[in-house]
């Protein structure tokens, strides 16, 4: 983890959250919110506007966020269905080494066509080949799949644990709060990246041998991905929990919580119906921004040789392999680097857009 984390959760409560502040609110106009229903007028045909719907409407007007969302959807589709389509578009290739082989072979991310090393894009290899004659596009799609799967896995754990612990710590305080506070202290002082490096470095070979037979996640050098995801989740959830805790404390002070208690709602019901729904926006924003960190984290670990192993593919691994030949074949390093940059930027822009859309201060 680098310092990106702390944009979501400032280390000190004195730091203003990094929201894009729009024009200062004009002093006397705040009381009259637009859309207020005049009592004297009769019912009008208009759909009720929930705060969520209003936020989404604002998001839709944010070109940058919508383009980013488009990019993300495209990359997800590419990683899921891309290989299937790609392999059915190529014909038979008469390989000097392997004889005639179909595209389902030479357009896989692990097939080495040693007579075709370090090529630039061509009709057969749309994005060229790497130093072992492997299809860069195929490896790229596999790398994207790895990035996105890790991101999804980590965010599921991150959000679940973050909300669970954060809400309990914020709502009830007590020992859970104390433990969380100490835990985040350590996480802040113990650089996350170092922890992940340690965990994957120490248990990596164990994972290679033990997990490689597990279906789906095991083969093709992906055995360490579960470990990497676990490590990433382990360092990210306490920060999410801290953020949720802070927000819970704020919501708890709102009078509608007191009102719910007066209405006879139990603690469980208050948490479930009043607190968690109101955490929605902040968690969505934090998770979106955290996906960038997760993707970078996985790529960093693979880059250092501690994540996905050969013959597997990951954007980080691709960059690492190609960076040795940066002076002779810059193309090979540019492709995964730019893809990674675009993916990460898209999540950051989307996160920024979501934050603006949810922040009532930017309300028009």
């Amino acid at each position: 983890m680098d310092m990106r984390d702390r944009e979501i959760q400032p280390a000190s409560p004195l730091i203003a959250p990094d929201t894009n502040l729009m024009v200062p609110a004009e002093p006397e106009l705040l009381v009259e919110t637009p859309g207020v229903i005049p009592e004297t007028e009769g019912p009008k045909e208009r759909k009720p506007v929930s705060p969520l719907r209003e936020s989404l409407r604002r998001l839709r007007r944010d070109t940058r966020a919508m383009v980013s969302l488009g990019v993300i959807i495209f990359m997800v589709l590419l990683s899921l269905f891309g290989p299937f389509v790609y392999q059915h578009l190529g014909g038979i290739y008469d390989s000097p080494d392997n004889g005639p082989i179909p595209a389902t072979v030479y357009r896989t991310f692990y097939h080495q066509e040693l007579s075709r090393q370090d090529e630039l894009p061509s009709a057969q290899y749309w994005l060229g080949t790497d130093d072992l004659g492997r299809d860069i596009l195929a490896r790229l799609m596999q790398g994207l799949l790895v990035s996105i799967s890790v991101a999804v896995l980590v965010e599921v754990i991150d959000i679940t644990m973050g909300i669970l612990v954060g809400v309990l710590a914020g709502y009830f305080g007590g020992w859970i709060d104390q433990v969380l506070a100490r835990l985040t202290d350590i996480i802040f002082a113990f650089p996350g990246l170092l922890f992940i490096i340690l965990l994957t470095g120490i248990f990596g070979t164990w994972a290679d041998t033990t997990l490689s037979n597990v279906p789906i996640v095991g083969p093709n050098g992906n055995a360490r991905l579960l470990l990497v995801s676990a490590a990433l989740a382990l360092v990210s959830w306490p920060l999410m929990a801290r953020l949720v805790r802070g927000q819970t404390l704020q919501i708890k002070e709102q009078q509608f919580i007191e009102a719910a208690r007066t209405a006879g709602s139990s603690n469980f019901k208050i948490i479930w119906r009043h607190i968690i729904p109101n955490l929605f926006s902040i968690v969505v924003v934090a998770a979106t921004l955290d996906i960038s960190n997760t993707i970078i984290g996985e790529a960093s670990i693979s880059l250092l040789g501690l994540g996905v192993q050969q013959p597997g593919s990951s954007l980080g691994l691709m960059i690492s392999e190609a960076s040795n030949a940066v002076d002779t074949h810059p193309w090979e390093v540019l492709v995964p680097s730019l893809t990674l940059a675009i993916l990460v930027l898209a999540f950051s822009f989307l996160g920024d857009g979501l934050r603006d859309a949810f922040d009532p201060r930017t309300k028009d």
Partner: protein
Amino acid sequence: MAQQQMATSTATGTTLVEVKGLKVHFPIKGGLFNRTIAQVKAVDGVDLTIRRGETLGLVGESGCGKSTTGRAILQLIKPTAGSVKLNGVELTKLPPAELRKKRAEMQMIFQDPFGSLDPRFTVGQIIAEPLENFKRGNAREIREQVAHLLEVVGLNPYYVNRFPHEFSGGQRQRIGIARALALRPSFIVADEPVSALDVSIQAQVVNLLQDLQAEFGLTYLFVAHNLSVVKHISDRVAVMYLGRIVELAASEKLYELPLHPYTQALLSAIPVPDPEVEARRKRIILEGDVPSPVNPPPGCNFHPRCWKAQQICREVTPLLEEKERDHYVACHFPG
């Protein structure tokens, strides 16, 4: 003496709420080991009886503990000490589940028309929440009750699916009132219900509260800092200063003949919208600020600002005693 007097009024059976020796102290943590280093004595020994069907006004300046008193009576804040009885049932010792059941009888109207409604609930869901908690009918019946409640507070039931942010402050306050009424409570604490509203809207809500009281036989504890409003709506008024009640009397009487120096100063400070009256009035301008409730002055805690203060005021805390019929005051030199 005063205690006995109050006790007898309980015996007549007209008392709905009885508060005795209520204290709410908040700890201030600090130091090396996060120990409690001081106490904020927000409420420091309050005795009150609220009669069935009356409106008892509770006034005081910010930080005097009036809102905390209201919340402690409803057990929204756990009192540090003292007893609160509603209909003769001791609330402070009820287990949580029992207390939740009791909430149907006592409700609250909140100050902040923006913060007191969950922004993600529709108006219908907000008002239905207490009804659902207490299983007052099936979905259809609850819907009907919600529609009826909206009409009762003067809102069109057509808006039942709207969200709070689509309403103005006054309308939101009406929604809050409808929610408080949903369970047909006997006792309502209204915590500064009009102070966040514009003056022209305040009157609408004040009138509504009065109408509802007549219609449903409600008992109000009306907490506010605006003495004019409190006097207008209340049968009796209690004046608080630094966590204690310094004077309690029928509202007319309190205004005409205040006995406690603080009440006198407070009343004289309130501007009257009449230049003739203003020109004639003599103001008592108090010196200095309200002391911190962490370290209240010893004895009568008003003595540092009081022009009548004697040695005894600095040493002995005056008790709230009945100086005239139904007129209680905590002062060594009242009048």
